[in-house]
Every structure is written in C-alpha cells, then in structure tokens.
C-alpha cells in the first residue's frame, strides 16, 4: 500500500475542503466540494473498500453536487447584509469558533490515537469472511452483510429514503411543471442518445451483480437516478415528463419497498423468519453465477427500484419548482 500516495490524497482532501469552506463564490465552493468527494472515493478505493468508493463517487460527489446546484440556482440570493452580525461580533465569533474547533480536533485526535493500536479482525468479521460463501452463497461480503445478515437494517434504510422523498415532495409541493422545455443543443442530444444505453447497462450490471462484484441496490439505483437526471437535463423536462410521469415514479418507488417486504415475508413463510435467506424458493446456487445469492438478487432489485425512483423524483420535484420560477 503506497504510503506517500495516501498522504498526497489526504493533503489534497484537506486543501479542497479548505477551499470549499473559505471561498466566497458559492459555485466554485460547490465544485471543490465535489472534488473532495472524488478524492475521498479514491482514498476509499486505496483503503480496500471498493463498495464504499463506488457509492461515495456516485452519491456524494455526483448526486449531491447536482442537487446542490439545483438548490443554488433556485434560491434568489439577496446580498448578505454585510453589517456586523448582531448575535455576537464576528471578531469575537471567528477566534472563539476556531478555539472550539482546535480543542475538538485535539480531543478527537487524542481519542483516536489511543485507539490506533495493532488492528486485528474482530470475531464478527472473521466469521463473515469465513462463512459468507457457505451461508449466503454470495461473493461480495459487504453486500452479504447488508442484504443477508443485516437485511432488516437495509429495510430501515429504504424507509429513511422514503421519508426523505416524502418530506421533500411535501416541502416543495405546489408549482406546476412546464412541458415545453427544449433541452441542450442538438449535438448533446445526439451524444446522449449514443451514451444512454451504455449508462443503463452499466447501472443494471452494478445492480444485478451486486452480490458478486462491488455494487448493489443503492449504487445501481443511484446510477439509474443519475441517468434519469441526465435525460431530464439534456432533453428538457418536457421530454422526460412524457416518458416517465411522476405518478409512475411513485409506483416504482413503492413497488420496490413492497417487493422488499414481500421477499422478507417469503422467507418467513418458509419458517426461516422475516428476510431469511436460502429458504423456500431461494437457493445458494453456484457461487459466481447470476442467480447465486439466494434472495439477495431480488433484494438488490427492490432496493435499486426504490433508490432510483426516489432520488430521481427528488430531482424531479426540485426541477419542477425551478420551472415554475422561470415562468414568472
């Protein structure tokens, strides 16, 4: 493991973070934030965490930045009142905050330093690494943990996404969507026409091979959402709305969640308890083949549906508001 490369990456992460914080121009601080995300993804990859790197690259540096830009372009920013902030003068606030953060950093570092002893695998992890193939038939241990050993938490997680989507569409409800919106130029449209199938293929591969190679429901779903956003941007919301209406997005989302619960119930039906793998219709199959991880494939599909539809409907709701702004 190359030590200097990691040090270099850490330095750049901190550099871009500082830039993102102290730059006055918001747009460029957003971009440097996404650069931090990308660098973080490379660090994760170097630290032997491919799944997390993939997710980080897609969600934190991809989706979040696009949502950030949409939110930024929507809010009408009247210039900040330059007067001294009334709560407490800035000359007092900056040093005080700096002191607090420095103390916090010292404390955190001291705490972590005492932790940094010799690292050995705990019992749980050794069990996971040794038994996953036999117990779940999946090759990707992380996906096995997520979808088999701790499937219930993943269900909880999908409900969190559901809650976020519901919250956002509640907050930003109202405002109708303008149909006739031309997208970008002809060249970009044709280019996208060429690229979209490959993107979709890539998303499907992440989704369905989640239990074999790094990937899974969340990453696949997010890539689908990104593809939806790209189409929305390139071809304009008119084209996109006629293709996949918001109603169908909702049904997809709810369908994903229900599929997840249904698979869980299937496990319970065969006496294995809610979300039990390798029970009834689900069999371990030959490791490495597509239908090998018991119900993990279908769970991935359910989560993918949910996350894809959810995130794209978030983007869709935000976009919709924007269009309404554009009209006045």
């Amino acid at each position, binding site marked *: 493991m190359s030590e200097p490369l990691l040090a270099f990456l850490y330095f750049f992460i901190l550099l871009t973070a500082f830039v993102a*914080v102290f730059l006055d121009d918001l747009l460029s601080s957003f971009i440097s934030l996404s650069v931090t995300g990308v660098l973080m993804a490379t660090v994760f990859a170097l630290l032997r*965490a491919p799944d997390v790197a993939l997710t980080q690259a897609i969600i934190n540096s991809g989706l979040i930045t696009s949502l950030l830009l949409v939110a930024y372009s929507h809010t009408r*920013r009247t210039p900040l009142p330059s007067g001294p902030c009334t709560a407490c003068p800035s000359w007092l606030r900056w040093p005080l905050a700096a002191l607090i953060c420095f103390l916090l950093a010292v404390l955190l570092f001291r705490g972590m330093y005492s932790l940094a002893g010799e690292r050995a695998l705990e019992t749980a992890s050794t069990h996971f690494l040794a038994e996953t193939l036999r117990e779940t038939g999946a090759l990707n241990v992380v996906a096995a943990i997520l979808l088999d050993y701790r499937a219930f938490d993943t269900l909880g997680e999908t409900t969190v996404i559901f809650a976020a989507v519901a919250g956002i569409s509640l907050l930003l409800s109202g405002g109708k969507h303008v149909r006739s919106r031309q997208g970008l130029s002809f060249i970009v449209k044709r280019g996208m026409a060429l690229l979209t199938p490959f993107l979709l293929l890539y998303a499907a591969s992440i989704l369905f091979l989640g239990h074999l190679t790094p990937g899974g429901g969340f990453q696949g779903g997010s890539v689908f959402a990104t593809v939806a956003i790209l189409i929305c941007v390139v071809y304009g919301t008119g084209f996109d709305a006629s293709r996949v209406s918001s109603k169908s997005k909702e049904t997809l989302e709810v369908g994903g969640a229900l599929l997840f619960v249904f698979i869980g119930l299937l496990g319970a039906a065969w006496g294995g308890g809610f979300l039990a793998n390798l029970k009834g219709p689900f069999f371990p199959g030959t490791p490495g083949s597509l239908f090998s991880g018991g119900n993990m494939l279908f769970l991935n599909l359910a989560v993918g549906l949910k996350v894809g539809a959810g995130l794209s409907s978030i983007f869709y709701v935000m976009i919709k508001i924007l269009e309404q702004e554009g009209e006045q």
Partner: protein
Amino acid sequence: MIIMSFATVAILFSLGLFTILVQRNAFKTVIGLTLMESAVLLLFISWAYIPEGWAPILPLKGSGVDPLPHALTLTAIVIGACDLALAFAFIMKLNGFEKTVDVDSFRRLKG
C-alpha cells in the same frame, strides 16, 4: 499510516464544525455538514483497513479487510445523502419565505 488518516479525520471534522459555526450562508452550512459526514466515513474506513488486507470480495487472495465498517459506511452515505437533500429542500423553502439565504435571518425559533 493510520495516524495520518486519523489526523485528517480530526481536521476535517473540526473544519466542518467551524464552517457551521462561522459562515452565515446556509449553503456553507450544508457544505460544513457534508465535510463532517465525510470525515466520519473516512474514520470508519481507515479504522477498518488492515495493512496487508485484500478487498472483502471472496475468494480472498490473502487476509481480508474488516467488512463490517464498510457495510455501516454504505448505510451512512445513503442516509447522509437523504438528509442533505432534505437540507436543500429546507433552504429552498426558507428562501421562499425569508428571501435570503442568511442563516441569521431564520429567526422564527425565538425564545
């Protein structure tokens, strides 16, 4: 090597907190939040790394890296993304009311 990543985590986290404490723009607060969250992610992963470990994909070529924190981090990233999206929605809504993005102008929660 671990010490270096722990140092980065500490600095990144306190930087995020510093942003939230100092900056008056709501978007900068969101940036601060993102930094703090990614610091935590980095802590998880660098804590899970074992020097000669391989990625937790079977069949393992050598000793594996600790897969449990990876699963936790995955969940953390997704949930972090959700609440950031909510934060954007809040900012857009508040901007609708207050017509500015200055955090000090959101003073409805008075004592």
